[in-house]
């Protein structure tokens, strides 16, 4: 069976999931199965099929499992959003159309060679940094739950960090491809620790500084962990020196510890994380109410969950019991309705995507492609870790999205670009294996 037919067949579980999920929500609502309501499902499957055709035509050798895995997550996300609010699902479906257009555009424009991106690395890096800082620009910046992650222009609000994570990975992959040799070879030992020459250590420290800026100005520990973690993963893979990663992580931990103790709003978030049920923090504005409700919702889920549409999200008089159920806390809704078993299933799908991503990196033959696939996969895995870890109180809760499931246009568009880049790398790598030049 060819890759593309495998991909087509692998879409069947996603199709079944979306059908079963919508049916469950309808049954719970005592609703009749109307044509209008079923169109979401049908439309969505149509979109998946279109995306499959695009890949079939442009990247015949690309990894066949990535897209069906993503489609499975997207289906689940759509069903949960539909269950929370029909409007969310409708808007999300519209964003999927936009996401697929960008997906197709990315693939078509880069299908000859993804390495053309290296030429624009400084432009991309600058754009990435500017995007990150946009939420602090007065007038368009938005503060949500104490963090500056979004911008609003008219009716459209956008989380630029989603896009800049890709930009920064592209830049780092390209930068490290050039300097990895120097970083490895030019080391001298200080107290037994191998260190690269100072002039090459510089950029490393700059990125660390950028992460700290993120922490303090964007006020989001999760995003900075995601960026810096992705960076360390790239440095480690580029140099094969665990010591760099460990030193880097130590610097990050020290910085976080310092700012958590000195900067008020960072401290508040850490306090809410440590003592979610303290009376004072629970009632405070931007306090621990959100994380406490997240944990309560998960406790309500149990092993098998309450079932689609059965969890209590709204208060009887209107108003939210579980805040940000469609964005930050969507994982808590999953645990509540599908239980530990369902949540593990979702995590497994993410893990499979990560596994495919790293496999693509392993197969890639040139350093840039390898580093690009590694960086994108690492950032993707870290994003899942940061938000799920936040929702489960493993780390302080932050406002990044759960990729392909959370409501949010920028997240969908950015993650479709990420998917397109991975497929581009994969197609090239597998083609070279099949047709050695």
């Amino acid at each position, binding site marked *: 069976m060819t890759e593309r037919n495998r991909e087509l067949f692998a879409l069947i579980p996603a199709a079944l999931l979306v059908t079963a999920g919508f049916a469950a929500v309808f049954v719970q609502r*005592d609703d009749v199965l109307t044509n209008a309501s079923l169109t979401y499902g049908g439309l969505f499957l149509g979109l998946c099929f279109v995306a499959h055709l695009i890949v079939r035509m442009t990247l015949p050798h690309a990894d066949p499992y990535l897209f069906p895995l993503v489609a499975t997550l997207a289906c689940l996300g759509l069903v949960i959003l539909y269950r929370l609010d029909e409007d969310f699902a409708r808007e999300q479906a519209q964003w999927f159309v936009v996401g697929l257009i960008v997906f197709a555009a990315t693939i078509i424009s880069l299908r000859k060679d993804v390495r053309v991106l290296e030429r624009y690395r400084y432009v991309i890096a600058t754009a990435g940094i500017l995007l990150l800082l946009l939420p602090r620009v007065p007038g368009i910046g938005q503060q949500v739950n104490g963090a500056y992650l979004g911008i609003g222009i008219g009716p459209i609000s956008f989380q630029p960090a989603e896009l800049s994570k890709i930009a920064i990975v592209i830049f780092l992959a390209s930068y490290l491809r050039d300097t990895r040799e120097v970083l490895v070879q030019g080391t001298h030992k200080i107290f037994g620790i191998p260190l690269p020459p100072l002039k090459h250590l510089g950029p490393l420290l700059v990125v660390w500084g950028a992460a700290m800026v993120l922490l303090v100005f964007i006020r989001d520990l999760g995003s900075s962990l995601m960026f810096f973690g992705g960076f360390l993963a790239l440095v480690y893979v580029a140099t*094969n020196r665990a010591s760099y990663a460990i030193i880097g992580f130590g610097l990050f931990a020290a910085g976080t510890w310092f700012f958590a103790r000195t900067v008020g709003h960072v401290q508040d978030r850490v306090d809410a994380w440590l003592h979610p049920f303290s009376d004072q923090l629970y009632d405070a504005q931007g306090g621990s109410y959100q994380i406490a409700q997240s944990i309560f919702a998960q406790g309500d889920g149990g092993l098998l969950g309450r079932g689609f549409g059965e969890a209590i999200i709204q208060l009887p008089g209107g108003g939210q019991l579980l805040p940000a159920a469609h964005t930050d806390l969507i994982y808590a809704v999953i645990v509540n309705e599908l239980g*530990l078993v369902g949540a593990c299933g979702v*995590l497994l799908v993410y893990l499979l995507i990560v596994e495919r991503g790293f496999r693509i990196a*392993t197969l890639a033959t040139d350093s840039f492609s390898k580093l690009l696939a590694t960086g994108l996969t690492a950032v993707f895995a870290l994003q899942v870790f940061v938000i799920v870890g936040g929702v489960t109180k*493993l780390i302080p809760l932050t406002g990044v999205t759960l990729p392909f499931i959370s409501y949010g246009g920028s997240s969908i568009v950015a993650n479709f670009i990420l998917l397109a880049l991975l497929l581009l790398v994969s197609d090239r790598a597998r083609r070279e294996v099949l047709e050695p030049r």
Partner: protein
Amino acid sequence: MNQPIARLFAIVLLLFAALVAFTSRWSVFDAQALRDNPKNRRALIEELRVKRGTIRAADGTLLARSEAAGAGTYRRRYTEAASLLPQVIGFSDIDLGRAGIERSRNDELSGNAGALDDIVDQLKGGVEKGDDVRLSIDLDAQRAALAGLNGRKGSVVAIEPATGRVRAMVSVPGYDPQSLLTSARRKALDTDPNAPLLNRATQAGYPPGSTFKVVTATAAIDSGRFEPSSVVNGDSPKVISGVPMANSGNKSFGDIDLTTALTFSVNTVWAQVAEKLGKGTMAEYMRKFGFNADPPMDYPDGQMLPSGEYRNGALLPPTSRFVDVGRMGIGQDKLRVTPLQMAMVASAVANGGELMKPTLTQSIVDPDGRVADRVEPQRDRRVMSERTASQLTEMMTNVVREGTGTAAALQGIDVAGKTGTAEIVRDQDINQPWFIGFAPASSPKIAVAVTIERSQGGQGGTEAAPIAKQVMESLLK
């Protein structure tokens, strides 16, 4: 570069394992604690969507029901008859929480009792309904007790000795349970110095006075150390634990047997008996009667007070060195007992020495009208031999026939009983009158305990015994 990529994947695996671990922690391991966290309002919100079962009296009179409150939620309604036993019913409210039967029978009332039913209900869709609770309380007996107390603070408990069913449980002052659900009225009730929300039958610890001599007599006879005919000197005063003790009116009785000593409630005799028995034997029989523990009744633990000796608000074992066993033997010292506990004492003697677990619930009826649970009588333990019980019945019958308890006598029916008058403020003559007893003495159908709080000059025989008579009359009809 492939080896570090593989290691990177291993790190991701570890991170995801941590995610699974934390998800398990909340959703499975800590789930119960999270459900019980007072900040978690899920259970209360869910309950609003359940049509709670009704609560009815023994004769079927409706006491509490749920009515639709819009948007698929329900609220509680208490009928006028519920004012006869507000503390027994308690309340169920999203802000107040729950108390009384509404709390102790919450699983049944909210339909949580049968997991299988839940699944069937879910498949059928429709409204979730709780089971109905039928109490064993007789409303006529409640009315008789309330009429007898006539607004005086106090409590009456009546138990069916053979089954443990509570037929009357009155605590005065009471309140209208429906009005409790409005916040202004609730505040007023909460801060009322007369404590209407307190169930005096189960929560108030009063000095039992001479009614406690029934416990001492049980220990004396059942331990084989004394017979009803054993003779003890009843002169007054006598030195007990180094301090002189007097009989009522400082009357000296000379050498008398225990039957006479109970009939005329001779303090010095029973104090000497208790001293001879010692703390160990007294403790053993108190434990058998249920002292020093929450009564085994279907009522919230937080609303039941264990009876026994108290020092600085803490329960003492009867063997403690702080206990004056002679004075304890006549119901003085530091004894604090609930009316329910004294009704259990009378009930155990009445039931041939066997104590039944008191229950407020007669049956549970499911929404389709089938009896889901009949609440069968349950034996608590044997307190004394049948022989001791019949000897005590004889002695207690004498109390009502010719002693201090004649006011409890019923036309044509032998009543067994014991009066008590605990002095609360001696120089102002403020007393705690008591009567415990049962009838008919030959084959007991009902056991009662009656007490009145801070009665001005009231005696057990004159104040409490007539109320017991009215309640027993009502239940023996």
